[in-house]
């Protein structure tokens, strides 16, 4: 398996390279920034990239998104000190095939590398549970969030339509209200959610389970 290492911690990266080579993997290159990682990935088309998150000149999550957009078949496994849930969720959303913490023991890491080689996604113990919790929370919580944010029933209905991709004209037809009224509701929604534009509203609505729950 041809591996690219992307990490700005040179000692950690060099040590990791030596470990992986000892286990028979082919470490084809190393990168110290997100930009370098993208360039090396483009040039060398590795099978697997171990990607740190916090790097100068483009972080690992942004680099992951760029690499997966160009070469979706390249496996990216995040290898980071961060157990921040937001980083974990962003990594999964960016297309990473795994999320590992650097505090793994050598033996644990060796077993995980073997699973990666067999095509399995990998996560440090405890993180998979957090991911499942968050997914369950997103599905269960739209109503609770609306109470916190103060969305009305009608605004909730508008958000549901927006999440499904409906235009204001389509929303008006679906809800038997005028387009002006839809505009009015959208303005209030933007204000209550502190968002700037429709695209952000769509993203927020999808993130908070709209469109999904009625669809089953």
């Amino acid at each position, binding site marked *: 398996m041809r591996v690219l290492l992307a990490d700005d*911690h*040179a*000692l950690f990266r060099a*040590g990791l390279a030596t*470990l992986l080579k000892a286990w028979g993997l082919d470490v084809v290159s190393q990168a110290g920034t997100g930009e370098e990682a993208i360039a090396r990935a483009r040039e060398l088309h590795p099978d697997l990239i171990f990607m740190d998150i916090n790097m100068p000149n483009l972080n690992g999550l942004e680099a992951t998104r760029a690499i997966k957009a160009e070469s979706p078949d390249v496996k990216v496994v995040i290898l980071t*000190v961060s157990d921040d849930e937001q980083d974990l969720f962003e990594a999964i959303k960016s297309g990473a095939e795994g999320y590992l913490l650097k505090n793994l*023991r*050598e033996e644990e890491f060796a077993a995980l590398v073997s699973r990666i080689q067999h095509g399995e996604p990998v996560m440090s113990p405890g993180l998979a549970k957090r991911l499942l919790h968050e997914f369950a929370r997103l599905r269960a919580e739209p109503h609770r969030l609306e109470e916190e944010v103060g969305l009305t029933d009608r605004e909730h209905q508008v958000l549901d339509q927006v999440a499904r991709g409906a235009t204001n004209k389509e929303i008006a037809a679906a809800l038997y209200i005028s387009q002006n009224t839809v505009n009015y509701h959208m303005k209030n929604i933007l204000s209550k959610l502190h968002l700037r534009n429709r695209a952000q509203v769509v993203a927020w609505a999808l993130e908070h389970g709209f469109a999904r729950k009625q669809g089953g």
Partner: protein
Amino acid sequence: MPPKRILLLSNRSLLASGVQRLLEKEEGIELFTAATGDGNAPAKVRQWSPEVIVLDSGDPSMGEGMVTRLLEQFPGARVVAVGLEQEGINVYRMQRLVQTTPSELLAAIYGKGAPSARRRPRKGGDVRTGDTGGATMGQ
């Protein structure tokens, strides 16, 4: 110049294991590796009589108390701690390296400015690693 006696106190973290593999390849270093976590680090230092002790500052068993004990009991030894995180303990006389490179680690091990802080091609001499105990190497 005789090789520098280095004891790596390792909890087999990725960082410590990587550092072990890197130091094993270095000419000019006689590397011993001992496991941490059993509270017996001082006994291992006594056993191997290193000039430099290298440890992972993220190792929970290598907190301020233990490091201070090592420095007090072995005043002739230097302690170099490598770490991944910015936060962490800083103990007087312990050199703490964060976000470091292999050559910076070697420079810390050999002592700043030492000309031997470089990698040389292996001449076939082995670097010993001893983590299963064995005869004391002598003072």
